[in-house]
């Protein structure tokens, strides 16, 4: 099997439509993973790049083990300017993380996210572990994105070990990822409604989210999809036709209900006022700062890993991509609402066309015989609910992990959040924060 990437020797100068996605250091060599937005390609470059000022700051942040400080430089001082810390024990944000807010009156002049309260050191811990043992930690680095995390890691490891995985397992993984996307988007919409004190909307959305969580538990054994994935296959097979049909019917009922109700929710003028024109992120800023996921698509960046870097099932199904040009909180919300529908459409195709071959191996011995010295490194990109997730994995001769580098989606979206909030009023903070779907656990793993 050929590794799923090509190392490009020359990227002379980064033009505006190429986004730097991640930087790996492998055997003393620095590799840069780039996303060519225009041609929808992933490029791996191993020459030093010429970068702009913002890009350098961004690169520093994505380095593993680097102390994260998202201050973009430039002192703000003057009469009437107040700086106040927000967090780590704060209202509104359920996780522990902080912000340094610099305000002038009601307006936010600058915002510096502080995301180093939740460090667990997963990337260092997994070195020397068997991939299947490491999986327990990796799927717990961000609980609400666990299906994306485990699939991303497992796919990278399988590429290195040259494992022949039954395609049915891969399709089941995709089903799990789509279920995860649906409940995360519902969660974001519910939180936005809570922020606007739209209590009916919040309650209805959280009910639907709870029902998706229960579907997860029913078909995958766990509400947050922990432990269904392993190297070489999955533990749940969704065998019978009835099982698949009932899964589809249940999820369709939920999403149909949501799409019926959402028109009523969004007919509230008060709600719309808070969403429209809040935290606008321009297309150039989104490109320059490397925004990913629904937030990037809301700023007219057509990048979705399901289309641009498709792993197995996504080549055989139709992915409905929606972009928006506004770039404000409303646009991000609309993209998410659309993605719920497109995920259901995807689930319909996945459950319908699912190949019958092969059962997932119950026990897998990752033997080092299949190990290839040349291809000891691989990476994988998965579209997690809040964006592009990258895992770069290197495995040594004994089949243990030599290096793991995770580039979570939330980490790169902090800078766009900070940038887009400049000039907004302080009370809009909650809406901007929730609409990006950020998670501190995801950033500071």
């Amino acid at each position, binding site marked *: 099997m050929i590794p799923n990437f090509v190392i490009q020797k020359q990227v002379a100068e980064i033009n505006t439509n190429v986004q730097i996605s991640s930087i790996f250091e492998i055997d003393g060599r620095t590799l840069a993973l780039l996303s060519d937005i225009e041609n929808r390609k992933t490029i791996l470059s191993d020459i030093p790049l010429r970068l702009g000022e913002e890009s350098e700051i961004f690169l520093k942040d994505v380095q593993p083990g680097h102390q994260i400080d998202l201050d973009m430089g430039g002192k703000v001082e003057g009469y009437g300017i107040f700086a106040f810390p927000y967090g780590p*024990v*704060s209202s509104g944000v*359920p996780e522990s993380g902080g912000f340094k807010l610099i305000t002038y009156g009601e307006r936010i002049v600058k915002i510096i996210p502080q995301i180093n309260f*939740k460090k*667990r050191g997963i990337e260092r811990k997994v070195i020397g572990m068997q991939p299947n043992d490491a999986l327990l930690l990796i799927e717990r680095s961000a*609980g609400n994105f666990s299906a994306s995390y485990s699939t991303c890691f497992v796919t990278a490891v399988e590429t290195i070990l040259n494992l022949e995985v039954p395609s049915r397992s891969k399709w089941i993984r995709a089903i799990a990822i789509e279920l995860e996307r649906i409940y995360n988007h519902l969660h974001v919409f519910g939180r936005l409604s809570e922020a606007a004190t739209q209590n009916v909307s919040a309650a209805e959305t959280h009910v639907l989210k709870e029902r998706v969580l229960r579907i997860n538990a029913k078909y995958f054994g766990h*509400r947050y999809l*922990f*432990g269904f994935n392993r190297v070489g296959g999955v533990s749940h097979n969704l065998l019978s036709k009835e099982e698949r049909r009932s899964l589809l019917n249940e999820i369709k009922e939920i999403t149909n209900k949501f799409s019926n109700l959402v028109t009523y929710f969004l007919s509230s003028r008060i709600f719309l006022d808070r969403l429209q024109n809040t935290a606008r992120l321009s297309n150039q800023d989104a490109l320059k700062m490397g925004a990913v996921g629904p937030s990037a698509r809301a700023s007219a960046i057509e990048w979705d890993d399901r289309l641009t870097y498709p792993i197995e099932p996504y080549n055989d199904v139709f992915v409905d991509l929606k972009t928006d040009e506004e770039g404000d909180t409303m646009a991000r919300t609309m993209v998410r609402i659309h993605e719920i529908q497109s995920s259901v459409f995807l689930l319909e195709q996945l459950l319908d066309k699912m190949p019958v071959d092969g059962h997932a191996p119950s026990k897998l011995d990752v033997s080092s015989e299949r190990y290839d010295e040349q291809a000891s490194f691989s990476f994988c990109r998965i579209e997690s609910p809040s964006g592009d997730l990258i895992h770069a994995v290197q495995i040594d001769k004994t089949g243990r992990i030599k290096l793991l580098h995770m580039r979570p989606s939330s980490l790169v979206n902090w800078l766009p959040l900070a940038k887009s909030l400049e000039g907004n009023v302080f009370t809009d903070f909650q809406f901007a924060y929730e609409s990006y779907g950020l998670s501190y656990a995801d950033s500071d793993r």
Partner: protein
Amino acid sequence: MVKFWVLHGIKNGILTTKYPKKEPTPEEIPLKSVPPTSVQESNWTVGKELCPTGAIENEANIDLGKCIYCRRCSDASFFFEDGTKSRKTALQAKILQNKDANKDLYAAFKTKAKTFQKSFHILMIDVGSCNACNIEVLNLANPYYDLTRLGIFFTNSPKHADVLVVVGALNKAMTNVLKQTYESMPEPKFVISIGACAISGGVFKDTESFVSPVQDVIPTDVIVPGCPPTPIQILEGLLLCMDRCVKGQETDMIKSKGET
């Protein structure tokens, strides 16, 4: 518009769980949220080797505070699954902290719980979790679990809080914050640690930034095992602090106290 919502509400019916008046349904506590039960005594050593967190101590005892419910032991069929049995174990484990507890401690717990019998405010603090426990605690507010019907409310300030809900594996950056939050809460106060990470460190117990289990830093009253525990299980832990136990749970609690 208003008419629509009223009709919509009536059509939906009552979604809220019958708990604590009735036992929770299997849908509310799925299989991977109850611990595995040991039966085959001869094979427990194999299960012990498979266990990633060292939760299996001997043939009879699984330390639920360490168990992450990964099902490695039961997948290898050394343990078997029985919903009813497992649930009972989970209930008994609620007061596992203070291992050498005696009757005085239990009486003190009881008097403290009596003061909160009607209502209290909870504050959630995250000391390094994966966000799953956080969402489960937030889920308590949704109409399925509806915390406010039991007189429990969320608060955002430690000064207003009666119960501190701790989630996550305690790391260096949050240790002092946790202590300060605990100290600024008024007396009497309860501390509940939720999830394997808060109780024992779970899968993160060997990572470089992990400090210690939460009960080593601040006195913990109730633990809720799980990874993550379901909202119903968290609710069970909260109701313990209110001295509003479910029928049958009380005796289990005393028994586990007496035995240890």
